[in-house]
């Protein structure tokens, strides 16, 4: 009985916080847009009894999903989101790995401080930090002024409102999520393994590729998923830093929801996004599980 209760509590939370909202959103995605509050039909009317329930279910259809396949805006947005998320994950990995490596190799007494520095940005609101990047990247921004002062460029570069700015924003925002799992993996790495590799004829570099990288693979995978999954649905960064050419599904979703007030289509977009995300999430879970097994 006690065991049952212990299991029931997390399941209850999962049900209340994930399954119920999902069912609601899924239901809206099957509804039709309406000029009402809430802005869709049908709504479940229990006063009509059994006939009301039947009428409710018969009014649901997959029209909105069909619509998503007809307008090429949507699949282009999905593809472009996948692409942007993929590229920014790769860049975050390329930037994050050396940082994590340096942290793991730093003297013991320095590590808490370095860890602090990585987490420090979380102390400021995410929105403020993205706004700050607008100030840095704009035509008259710090970056352009600095580059012109150095004499590297004569004309200010257009960075803000381009995909480049989106990449910068995503990499900057999600970098800690990449660094921390890789750092955790590298920190556990036994130094004598590197020595053994060198003893058996590896140079420093080949010992890194043959021992360090494979042994931090779980950290790399965890970090990549932690960046890729939220980046795919990212909305704030493309809307603030991206331009009209930046097509991301998060932005489309927002526009459907708030500009067009088309809740059913917005919900359908969200359901498809979730379906796309299920694949990396499942892979992520498998990775975590494998890691836990390997540590036993």
């Amino acid at each position, binding site marked *: 009985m006690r065991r049952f209760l212990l299991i029931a509590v997390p399941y209850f939370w999962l049900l209340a916080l994930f399954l119920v909202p999902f069912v609601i959103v899924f239901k809206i995605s099957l509804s039709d847009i309406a000029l009402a509050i809430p802005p869709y039909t049908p709504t479940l009317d229990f006063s009509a009894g059994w006939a009301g329930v039947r009428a409710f279910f018969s009014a649901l259809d997959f029209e909105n999903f069909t619509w998503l396949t007809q307008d090429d805006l949507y699949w282009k947005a999905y593809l472009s989101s996948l692409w942007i998320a993929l590229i920014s994950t790769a860049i975050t990995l390329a930037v994050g790995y050396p940082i994590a490596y340096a942290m793991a190799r730093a003297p013991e007494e320095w590590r808490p401080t370095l860890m602090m520095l990585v987490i420090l940005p979380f102390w400021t609101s995410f929105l403020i930090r993205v706004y700050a990047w607008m100030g840095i990247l704009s035509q008259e921004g710090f970056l352009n002024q600095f580059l012109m002062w150095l004499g590297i460029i004569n004309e200010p570069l257009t960075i803000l409102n381009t995909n480049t700015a989106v990449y910068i924003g995503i990499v900057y925002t999600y970098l800690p999520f990449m660094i921390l799992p890789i750092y955790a993996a590298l920190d556990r790495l*036994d130094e004598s393994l590197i020595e053994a*590799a*060198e*003893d*058996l*004829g*590896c140079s420093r570099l*080949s010992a890194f590729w*043959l021992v360090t990288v494979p042994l931090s693979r779980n950290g790399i995978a965890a970090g990549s998923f932690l960046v890729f999954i939220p980046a795919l649905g990212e909305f704030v960064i493309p809307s603030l830093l991206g331009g009209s050419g930046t097509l991301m599904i998060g932005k489309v979703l927002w526009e459907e929801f708030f500009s067009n007030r088309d809740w059913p289509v917005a919900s359908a977009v969200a359901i498809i996004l979730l379906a796309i995300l299920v694949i990396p999430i499942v892979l992520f879970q498998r990775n975590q599980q494998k890691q836990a097994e390997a540590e036993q």
Partner: protein
Amino acid sequence: MQSTVFTPWEDPDAKPLIRFQNVTKRFGTFTAIDDLSLDIYEREFFALLGPSGCGKTTMMRMLGGFETPTEGRIELAGKDIVGVPPNKRAVNMMFQSYALFPHLSVWDNIAFGLRRDKRPKAEIEARVAEMLKLTRLEKFAGRKPHQISGGQRQRVALARSLAKAPKLLLLDEPLGALDAKLRQDTQFELMDIQEKTGTTFVIVTHDQEEAMTVASRVAVMDEGKLIQVATPDRIYESPANVYVADFIGDVNIIEGRATPGEDDTYAIDWAEGEVPLQATSATRFDKGQTCYLAIRPEKVTISTDRPEGAVNAVQGKVLDIAYLGNLSTYHVELPSGMVIKAQTANTRRISRRSFTWEDPVWLSWTVTGGVLLAG
């Protein structure tokens, strides 16, 4: 000099393979190796023996290239190797912690070093198979290190370090986790490999019996210093001092004052009202000088009556009997309270043992049975 006996350390013209010259290693203010000089010759099986923390691993790591000496120089085959990276040394090391690659199978672990040499595939396969056979790991070739037992892991580490057939092989406690039988087999296997390949071995061990079995020479260390470097029989039969005598095997130490007699014989006053003990010594002792008589338990004879004509005989009563199977060790308490150990071979069945607890007995040994030490 006889050519059949392998004693390069006695040949003044022999060139050592390894030469430590006044090597000191400090970690911060802590001195791990203290002004140590040592020559190890090619084809030697050299054992480092000493208490935990005396610097054995540190010496190995300096040979392997993982630590640089703070002072002094280390030569390998006549060349200064300080500053040469580990992968550029013809030295392989078996790590005390094994350091097996957890992401690679047993097979790949053993093949790791061979692959780095870019040897042909067939040769690698043959060599790995040979190593697996040697360490009896054929059945576990496909497993990962976390899927095998501690002793098996140790054998993988051994196989991996042997695979490249290096000029110098460093073994840091290679057999600690093996059971007695397998350990003995592996010891002989190691000696066999050594004979066949002519590899020079430096082995660290906590097991003095192991050191005695395998080594051509043994070095006893303490606090970063070498106390004695000699062949196993010399270490055992004529230890340089009380520390070595006490560290290697079981020993009775009797403190006393020496009085020189004839023919290097000394009379040792060791207890009030007792007849002085007699012992010979090649080293000189002055009259009244404090000395220590070290007697191995197996050199002490135990009997009910005082043996006829025994030079050294003391009386006591049996305090304890340690039955070791083939041997029994009797702990005999003397009237002064001192306990002397005597060992006898159990040639008869235990029920027919001549002595039991509380029995009054005589202990005796010859003039040459003990070693007289200065400190």
